[in-house]
């Protein structure tokens, strides 16, 4: 079977916001938002047909401002939180979280969709990023962090969001809250927030926050992700060019440190099904697919497996994707197909790629 060729899609403007359309379960769809300060921004819905490798798009004009971050509700596939930045009437730059509903249309070359705004999250200024409850279902919840270290939990069951809980992180003087993420274990009771070089956890049951890490990634941690299959395990990446793998219970040092990129790592994510696969994007313009088997959850063993246990796969870079020519700020796995992922570079190039066939079969036959 021939290796799948990457599919490349260009956005008109610079972009850094990318998400898989989590609520969609049938088709491989990604949402990305542009970041231009002088033009009207757009949200692109990109639909990838794996059979035909045809890429369809649907462009939603977005007039609220430039898009820093876009996240998609797991419970309601049309419900999207957009971290929007714009210059207000006083000439100040403001960042807010906008809730929007994508309306109508199927992804098609010509079609243009419409966006119905549900309004901003009230009293949240300087919003840095948002994250939807990953489980979906009845939990249509959203966590938001702003540059004043306020973290709040919003319930968006109706179209009017309700702030149900909030906390102030003890992170004076820190400016970059570049990632917020739900911990998918223990009933999603914990949220992880990065603040410059530090990582905080917010336990929503006890309403307590803890500083987990500090200065492990040089000056800044850029992204974090919890292992979807193995409790307590999470990864982080940042300005020291590394991706590090942690056990929450042993934070003295990382379990594994991967130094594969030659510049800051801006985004990293576990594969949702096969957590030994880790995707990372960096401002060295590279996307790496890495196998980190040493800290992955145990693969399911066949009970009748009498063969010699094969040597455990080593930690390694599986493949390097060099389709980008500018910094890659976002990489995301498809939530529909475990073998497909997208990466977005600053120059507006969206690339959809596949896990190499060999690796895929190696995992499936393991």
């Amino acid at each position: 079977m021939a290796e799948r060729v990457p599919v490349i899609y260009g956005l008109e403007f610079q972009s850094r916001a990318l998400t898989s359309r989590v609520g969609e379960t049938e088709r491989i769809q990604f949402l990305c938002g542009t970041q231009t300060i002088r033009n009207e921004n757009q949200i692109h819905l990109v639909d990838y047909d794996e059979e035909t490798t045809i890429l369809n798009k649907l462009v939603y004009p977005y007039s609220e401002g430039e898009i820093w971050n876009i996240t998609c509700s797991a419970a309601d596939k049309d419900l999207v939180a957009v971290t929007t930045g714009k210059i207000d009437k006083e000439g100040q730059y403001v960042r807010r979280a906008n809730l929007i509903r994508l309306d109508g249309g199927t992804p098609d070359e010509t079609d243009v969709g419409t966006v119905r705004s549900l309004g901003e999250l009230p009293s949240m200024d300087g919003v840095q990023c948002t994250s939807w409850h990953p489980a979906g279902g009845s939990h249509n919840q959203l966590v938001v962090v702003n540059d004043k270290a306020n973290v709040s939990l919003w319930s968006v069951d109706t179209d009017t969001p309700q702030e149900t809980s909030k906390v102030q992180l003890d992170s004076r003087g820190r400016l970059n809250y570049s990632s917020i993420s739900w911990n998918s274990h223990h009933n999603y009771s914990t949220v992880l927030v990065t603040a410059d070089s530090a990582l905080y956890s917010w336990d929503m049951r006890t309403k307590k926050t803890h500083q987990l890490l500090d200065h492990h990634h040089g000056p800044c941690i850029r992204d974090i992700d919890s292992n979807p299959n193995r409790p307590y395990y999470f990864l982080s990446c940042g300005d020291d060019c590394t991706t590090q793998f942690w056990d929450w219970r042993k934070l003295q040092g990382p379990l594994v440190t991967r130094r594969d990129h030659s510049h800051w790592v801006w985004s990293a994510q576990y594969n949702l099904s096969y957590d030994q696969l880790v995707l990372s994007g960096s401002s060295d313009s590279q996307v790496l697919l890495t196998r980190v088997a040493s800290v992955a959850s145990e693969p399911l063993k066949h009970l009748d497996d009498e063969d010699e246990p094969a040597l455990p796969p080593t930690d390694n870079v599986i493949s390097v994707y060099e389709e980008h020519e500018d910094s890659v700020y976002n990489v995301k796995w498809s939530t529909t197909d475990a073998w497909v992922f997208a990466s977005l570079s600053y120059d507006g190039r969206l690339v959809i790629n596949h896990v190499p066939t060999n690796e895929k079969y190696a995992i499936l036959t393991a």
Partner: protein
Amino acid sequence: MASEEEVEKSVSPEATDDADRQMRRRKRGYLRMYYGVTDEGTGGASAREPANPLDIDSSGFKVDQYMEKMLRNLSLTDLYDKERKVKKETLQLDSNMQHLVYENHSKFIKASETIKEMKDDFQRLEDGMSKLSSRIEGIRSSSNSINEALSERKQQIAKLSSVHHLLKKLQFLFELPGRLNKCLERRAYSQAVNYYVKAQKVLEQYKHLPSFHGIQHDCLAIIDELKTLLKGRLDDQQSSPKMIAEAVDLLLQLQEPPQALCQQYLDNSRRQLESDLLKVETAAKTLPSSTGNDEEDGVVVDAVEFVGVVCNGFLGNMSLIIQSCFDMFIRKKSVCHSTDVAVVSKEALVVFVQELMSRCSSLINDKLTLEAKMLNSAHLARALDRLSGKLHTLDQLLPSAGIYSNCQSMIKMVVHIHTESHAHCLLQNFSSTVTDIRQEIATFKGATPSSTPPLSDHSTALYAAIKTGLDSSLTNLLEFISPDINFTMQDGFRKEFCLKCVRQEVVVDFLNSVIRVCKEFTESSRETVTSYPPSLILILAGVMHQLERSHISYLVSYADEKFSPFEKGKNPATPIDSIVTEAKTTAELLINHYVRMQGQVLAQMIRKSVETRDWLNTIEPRNVRSVMRRMVEEVTVIDKQVGLLFEEGFRKSDGSETSRTFTYSVTKGGNGGYPYSSSHSGLGDSSLLSNIQKLFFEKIEVFGNVEFTKLSIVTGVIKIALKALVECVRLRTFGKYGLQQMQVDAHYLQIYLWRYVSDEQLVRVLLDEVISSTIGRCRDPVLMEQSVVELICENS
């Protein structure tokens, strides 16, 4: 044949010798004929040869034939000559014969006269002989008569003399007790024993006689007293070994059981040795550390002194005891009636020696283990040598106790500990030097802000610490194989010492640990990142680089030279490639770490400056921002520091000209142009330019590996800083003046940084990227006039 004859017959003057010989032979022939002797030689010859009838001398001479032949062969003149010759010869022969006959006749007459004379003499001799025999007969008869007369007296005298002898013996016996007593009084014990031993048998034989019994009784009492006295002497601490030996000898003569004596002897010796052992123990316990503050205890017993104590005291006495034990009990054939006693005594001795030696060994071991850690190889070597020598002699005295083999294993262990402590000390020395340098760097305050700590000095110092440390250790260790140290002369030990102990455990392990220590600096977690000054890392990188390039091989070969004198040219030890490779990787790690650290410092500075400023509402730029000046300063310092330790390296191109004529590629289409647009819409000039530039310029690896040159290192740092600037700019939003400020800053950096990088193009591309990114993030991108930018930069 004719010629032969001629020769034979001719008496030519030149053949006189021959003629003489012929003459003599002929005379002899006549004589033989006369006496009827057939000479074998001539007779044989004549018998062999058929008688030649033509030979005038032969017996088978035929006149007729000869004549016939002559007549036939010779001319008339010849015949005349011949005739004359024959006549002459005949005459000569006749006169010869006459002469001979006369001579012999006179000799016969003389001989017969002599025989007659002899006959008369013999007759006279016979008369004398008969007279002599008759007289000897007379002498014999008179001697017999005298003997008969004297025999009776002689027997009497013999009897009397035997009686006298017996009486003398008896008198000796009777006097014995008294003499013994006297001897005891005079302390002449050996004489007493001598007397007693002489009398003992007789007394034993005749003890049934009351008088003898009495004497024996008395003697026994005295001898018992003597025995107790001698035993007392054995037990006496004061008695000298010689006295003891004498006592033991006497006691043995007095039939004391040797085993018991041996045991007693050993028991007594044990006391002596115990006290020696105690001395050894005190010597061993006197630690130099405790003596430092303890005045009355203040004798620092070093290894040599300690071994001196051991050898002179304990071991000396031990060897003396073994020696005398051998002399007294084991080798003495007269004492040991059966070999069993020798064997038993020997066993007892071995057990005795082994027990004490093991105690002593453990003491020595403890002390020397301590001493081995003291790094004074000369002392230790000498001490070990002395000990080994002493024990070797002891071992030869008593091979079955296994003293020497124990000693060898102990020595091996001590040497091992010693080399290990050397390596340990070297490493400590190195670490402390590193710490010192670190502190000096941390507390360094230059005269001017841009002055740097004396990095090259530190680097030299660090290498010197490695080198001199190793050197002194090796010199120290050389003591072990110096010619006057004997115990290392054994080949097995020497080889192991040179290769395993010195080369592997000291040199190689030390270098490995140095590399490991340096490596640890790069494997820093967050605490160490902040606490180690980057210059230290730089120094370490420099030292490591030097080590890799030349010093390791130098040091190792230096050591090999010193410690492999016995196998020239061929070195069976492990190759040093692995250390060199390890040093190389470590050097690379360190230098990359340095670049990363310095780059991160600058990047952090830039990040803070970009993040904290409100770029949207800033005023029109009048100056280069101070952070940029600081950055240039920092880079200058870094450049200076790196320049102290590393070579310049090569530039990719001569950049001076381009830097002067430098303008941003974006200026042309800057106003209102979008540097980035989608692939669907048309590309603006600027983005086209920048993209083309990118196409031709290979991708910049920001945190890539650097080379060991100043340019490469500083370029690495600058790359990290500028790339950080790009990334930070992209996270901000700019107003018109913000953009212009960035423009000014970028230009400033361009004109000051190009000189520090290997490829000026690189700075340019990155700064282009800064400006185009700023334009992308700018609300109303209006670039400043290039001339104004240059003016501001010049003013700054």
